């Protein structure tokens, strides 16, 4: 079975982290390889084989292969692993399924921890225990395989059947959309509250959709870099879309806040939005969020900032910082309902055969600039993938 694999190599990891960052594969330094390996074995009862059909490349995957993810995660993964946790797959009987990648207590053959018992599987405390190797999700675990391959194994508790009439290209968005559902639910937005969504990649766009659909938000402002993102953000629910350099002024305008200019660093607001949602995964994005959220407001981390941010505003403005990782029970069901929204067909996707893995990853790193909402692999024609 062909697979893309991340393996342990300290020199390559260091070189990638220091030298290449967001163009991880261009220089061939990343500890990533295309291999021929045995299919993963079934770890125990309740596990089944899944043949990936389409598999997305997520921002966290890019952070992993570019060496920019936090060392915090190092005990929560097991090497080597096949990335890919945004998976539309097929069971042996032909049933199409999407994967909830969290490897919680049920998948690990453990009695449920308090979080899993409450349906908050993404908060599982036992992702290093049980009968599979450490791994917070499928796609970061040595035993399960991942979506960037010809086959993976999954626990039935992780699988959700896809409605028959849902096209593959939209169904593969189920996992990121379920995460966006979770973000909307975690954001605690109250009636008519103003919202800022920072970033208009896949996470940002899907978050716009879910915030508009599932919360009583008032005015939503989105931050987008590229023209295609701007158009999609408006389509999916933003009342206003501003560029990264105009966000402070844009939020000031809509909230009538006061702009102040520190002696060094970026302008910030006294006043601002009620809730900001960071979806870019960048420290600049988080910095924008904390500088434009009103005192006592909430900052939701949907993306994964990888470097330091001045948290003075969090202290001084008494901001409430809320993480939103993966999904809880019910989020996938909601996502599968929302996937019928025709506006999602406006999200341009690009899927490559697995053999073109380098190009695919580099394209994913430039997706916004290229006007693509999702880049991934097409494995419907076997491991070589569709042309």
């Amino acid at each position, binding site marked *: 079975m062909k697979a893309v694999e991340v393996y342990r190599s300290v020199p390559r990891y260091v070189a990638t982290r220091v030298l290449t960052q967001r163009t991880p594969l261009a220089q061939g330094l990343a500890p990533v390889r295309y291999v021929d390996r045995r299919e993963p074995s079934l770890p125990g009862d309740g596990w089944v084989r899944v043949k990936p059909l389409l598999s997305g490349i997520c921002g966290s995957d890019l952070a992993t292969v570019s060496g920019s993810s936090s060392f915090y995660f190092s005990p929560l993964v097991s090497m080597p692993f096949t990335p890919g946790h945004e998976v539309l797959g097929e069971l042996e009987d032909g049933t199409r399924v999407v994967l909830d990648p969290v490897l919680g207590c049920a998948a690990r053959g453990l009695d449920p921890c308090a979080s899993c018992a409450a349906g908050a599987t993404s908060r599982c405390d036992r992702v290093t225990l049980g009968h599979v190797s450490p791994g917070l999700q499928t796609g970061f675990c040595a035993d399960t395989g991942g979506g960037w391959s010809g086959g993976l194994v999954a626990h039935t508790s992780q699988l959700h059947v896809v409605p028959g009439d849902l096209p593959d290209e939209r169904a593969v968005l189920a996992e990121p959309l379920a995460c966006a559902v979770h973000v909307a639910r975690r954001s605690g937005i109250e009636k008519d509250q103003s919202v800022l969504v920072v970033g208009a990649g896949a996470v940002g766009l899907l978050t716009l959709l879910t915030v508009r659909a599932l919360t009583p938000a008032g005015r939503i402002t989105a931050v987008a870099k590229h023209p295609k993102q701007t158009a999609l953000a408006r389509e999916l629910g933003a009342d206003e879309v501003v560029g990264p350099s105009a966000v402070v002024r844009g939020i000031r305008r809509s909230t009538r806040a*006061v702009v102040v200019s520190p002696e060094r660093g970026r302008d910030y607001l006294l006043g601002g939005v009620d809730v900001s949602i960071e979806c870019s995964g960048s420290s600049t994005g988080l910095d924008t969020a904390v500088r434009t959220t009103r005192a006592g407001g909430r900052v939701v981390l949907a993306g994964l900032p990888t470097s330091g941010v001045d948290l003075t505003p969090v202290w001084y403005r008494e901001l409430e910082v809320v993480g939103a990782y993966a999904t809880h029970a019910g989020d996938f069901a909601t996502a599968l309902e929302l996937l019928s929204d025709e506006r999602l067909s406006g999200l341009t996707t690009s899927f490559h055969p697995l053999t073109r893995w380098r190009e695919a990853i580099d394209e994913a790193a430039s997706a916004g600039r290229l006007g693509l909402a999702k880049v991934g692999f097409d494995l419907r024609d076997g491991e070589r993938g569709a042309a």
Partner: protein
Amino acid sequence: MTRPGFVLEVDERTPPLLVHSGESFRLERFPLGTRVIYPAESLPALPDVPAAIADALDNPLGDSKPLRELLFSGMRLTIAFDDISLPLPPMRTPDIRQQVIEQVLELAARAGVDDVQLISANALHRRLTAGELKRIVGERVFRSFYPEALVNFDAEDRDNLTHLGVTPHGEDVEISKRAAESDLLVYVNVNLVAMDGGHKSTSIGLASYNSLRHHHNPHTMTHSRSFMDPRHSEMHKSAWRMGKVLQSNVKVFQIETTLNNAAFPSQYGFLTKREWEWSVKDQAMAVGMSKSIDRLPAQLRRKVFRDIVADYGVTSVQAGEIEPVHERTLQHVHRQQLVEVEGQTDVVVFGLPYIGPYNVNSVMNPILTMCLGLGYFFNMYRNKPLVRKDGAIILFHPTPWEFSQLHHPSYVDFFEEVLTATTDPAVMSERFEKQYAEDEWYRHLYRTSHAYHGVHPFYMWYWGAHALDHVQDVIYVGADRKSVERMGFRTASSLRDALAMASGSVGSDPSITYLHSPPHILADVR
């Protein structure tokens, strides 16, 4: 002998004509038959301005006593003066306001008046810098009074405003407390165009938003036909009503001055001469500058224009009661600027210069080009507009997407937020004006920095309301397409293209009038 303004009809012998276009200008060939309205040559300046000032102060118009008799020891005297928006371009120093203020202060000193305050009557305009104030009042006055007794008016200083009452039309009259509580308010004006002066000086220059909103609104502006004809301007009628209330509470001694048409210094003589009378040097300057100025770096080009100071000469000084003074002032303005024009045309062409009242030492942003073209130039008429109803206006200006964050912060937001929602003055007034007028950040910048008031971009747009209501097409030549589209207008790369674009509204063979200004022309359209 000064030659009056006149109307030229373009024929085969007519040379290319000078057309202002922001920080540049063009030599443009107009279609045969185009009417070109030329300004009058500059009237002779008064030979002895100090003597004329002294005479005006001693021999006031109306029922006013001479100024020296109105001054007494122990009194509270306030001298208000027009701000930096007048004259344009700034005049060579000493500014006429300096010369007047120095004489007023001298009389006050002789009378033993100690409590004197000078106020720049900037209403909702930006605060002047110390240097700008000094340029207006002169070194001696500046040193003696700045900063405690030489100040910018602050229309948002609630503790220092006085509500004097309401007009019979229910219009609030709220002005500077210092002016309202003075024993005498002396107003020193520079009456560049017929819109300026009269009751507008005090009841607008020293007024708050609470007062100004009664006439600076789309309805009043649409029915001011024109701003340059106070008798037919609803804005002026409102200001006059307010002036009556003000005068019943405050004693005002009005000093008005008029300038001639020497709007540019002698080295730029070609800007005020008729093209066929250009000397070889004028021709060289005009051709050289029109071809080279665009190639200069933007900052250098801006500096070239900002450094221009006009050779304005003073043509009259009159003082005393507001209305008789202003009546005399208008006669002098008309003597210089009025040009008779026979009938309207399908298309009117304006070349917008680099400067307007609201971008002195600043940037002419897109909203200000609209105000200058559709507000000021369009309204330079008496009786009826130069362009017929449903005709077309063609403006020359590059209109870059450029704003001064220092001077025009609310304009930036107006451009981004308001104009993307509507370009209709009435709709924007209803939906957006109040929140901009009461925005605390704009208030803060207006009061402490050098920013125009938050509501100011609305007023600029309202200035164009009459033109927007009157014409069907507004086309910019040589402008930034995105800026112009944001304002709801169209762009053309040349005059010929603009005329082709306007053919939908005015036909393929329209009558055309080009207002060859500056210097200022007030078209008396018969």
